């Protein structure tokens, strides 16, 4: 199979105005992926499926990812006037990256027996009603999995034929796979709570500064 760079240039050539980005993966898997822009996602998906040398006709897996807002501390060198002469000084700058939600598609070709090509779509923000174009019209197998992403992450897929909750009940209003999801407080006694469960236990019970020490008490919300 051709490299991701070649796919990128050919796709950009085939779909005018489309802008793709290669997201590197620095982990041991070293599996980079293609980030599609929202407006041309469906046209590029069609190109990936129908192009005779690619023929990525099988979408094996669709999943969601939640990326929270984050700030990264970066050290940069700045020229400053120090004691009358110009010097290079290291300065720490905080860079803010706004959060977003992501849908990841894994594509294979049944015709040419190659793959996977990993394709990503990103929402503008993490707000309620974050929108992405649906790829179900291109790959029918994405239908249930896009519903699952809608159910658990709250991404709305524009153009999906039947977008409803699939695992949780219809009356449910939360999105449990989002990182800021807090489940209802139904903590039950555990003999040896640890990690997350210990945190839950502390939040569930009234604080006891005398026994536990004031620093062990989680703030009451």
């Amino acid at each position, binding site marked *: 199979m051709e490299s991701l760079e070649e796919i990128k240039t050919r796709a950009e050539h085939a779909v005018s105005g489309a802008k793709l980005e290669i997201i590197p993966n620095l982990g041991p898997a070293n599996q980079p992926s293609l980030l599609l822009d929202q407006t041309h996602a469906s046209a590029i998906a069609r190109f990936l499926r129908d192009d005779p040398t690619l023929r990525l006709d099988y979408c094996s897996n669709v999943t969601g990812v939640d990326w929270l807002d984050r700030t990264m501390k970066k050290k940069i060198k700045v020229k400053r006037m120090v004691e009358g002469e110009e010097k290079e000084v290291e300065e720490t700058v905080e860079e803010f990256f706004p959060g977003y939600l992501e849908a990841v598609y894994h594509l294979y070709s049944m015709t040419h027996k190659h793959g996977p090509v990993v394709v990503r779509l990103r929402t503008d923000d993490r707000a309620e009603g974050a929108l992405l174009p649906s790829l179900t019209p291109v790959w029918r197998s994405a239908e249930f999995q896009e519903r699952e992403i809608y159910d658990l992450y709250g991404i709305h897929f524009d153009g999906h034929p039947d977008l409803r909750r699939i695992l*949780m009940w219809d009356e449910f209003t939360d999105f449990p796979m989002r990182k800021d999801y807090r*489940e*209802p407080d*139904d903590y039950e006694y555990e003999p040896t709570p640890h990690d*997350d469960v210990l945190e839950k236990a502390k939040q569930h019970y009234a604080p006891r500064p005398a026994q536990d020490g004031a620093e062990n008490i989680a703030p009451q919300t």
Partner: protein
Amino acid sequence: MMEGEMDEGLKGELQKQGIWVTSMQELYNWGRKNSIWPLQFGLACCAIEMIATAASRYDIARFGGEVFRPSPRQADLMIVAGTVTKKMAPQIVRLYNQMPDPKYVISMGACAISGGPFKQGYNVLKGIDRYIPVDVYIPGCPPRPEALLHAFMELQRKIDGQKLTGKGKAEFLKANTPSEFPVPEFGAHDLMPPANPDVFHPPAIERA
């Protein structure tokens, strides 16, 4: 000796003479305990063990429980075999409500007892006893067929000990004992209510 009960020694003596004496209650309970018809449904991996129990190797028919009924109207026993998700819980309670009295519940496996390995999750009910009364609990993940048979025999023992009249009369014979329980509603964040306080009595935890 209770009123209406017969001396065991006299009974044995009569039996030696070829006279078999029994009481209505004994006969009735003997019939009931040897023809417990379970409701035919399974929820997760415990159901596979339940199927194995019903199949020829473990053969629940030896205890008269082989008639798995596909309708709650004909069932005496509900074996809650597997993980009860919050989405499934109202249907389980509804099925229980549709079973005729006397009815019994076996809570099979860690999930049906307490949520098991999924206890800390958001989508699994932390035990079916939050909504319906349970007669026998079987721990295990999943419990072996022998454990289910043991629970079945425990239930038979329980049925055998139920009295039809008098002061210690069985619960299901009392007119004011409820045989139906409210079906929980799907709420915005959780099932409403999260547990039925009339049924669910967890032990109070004393914090040392």
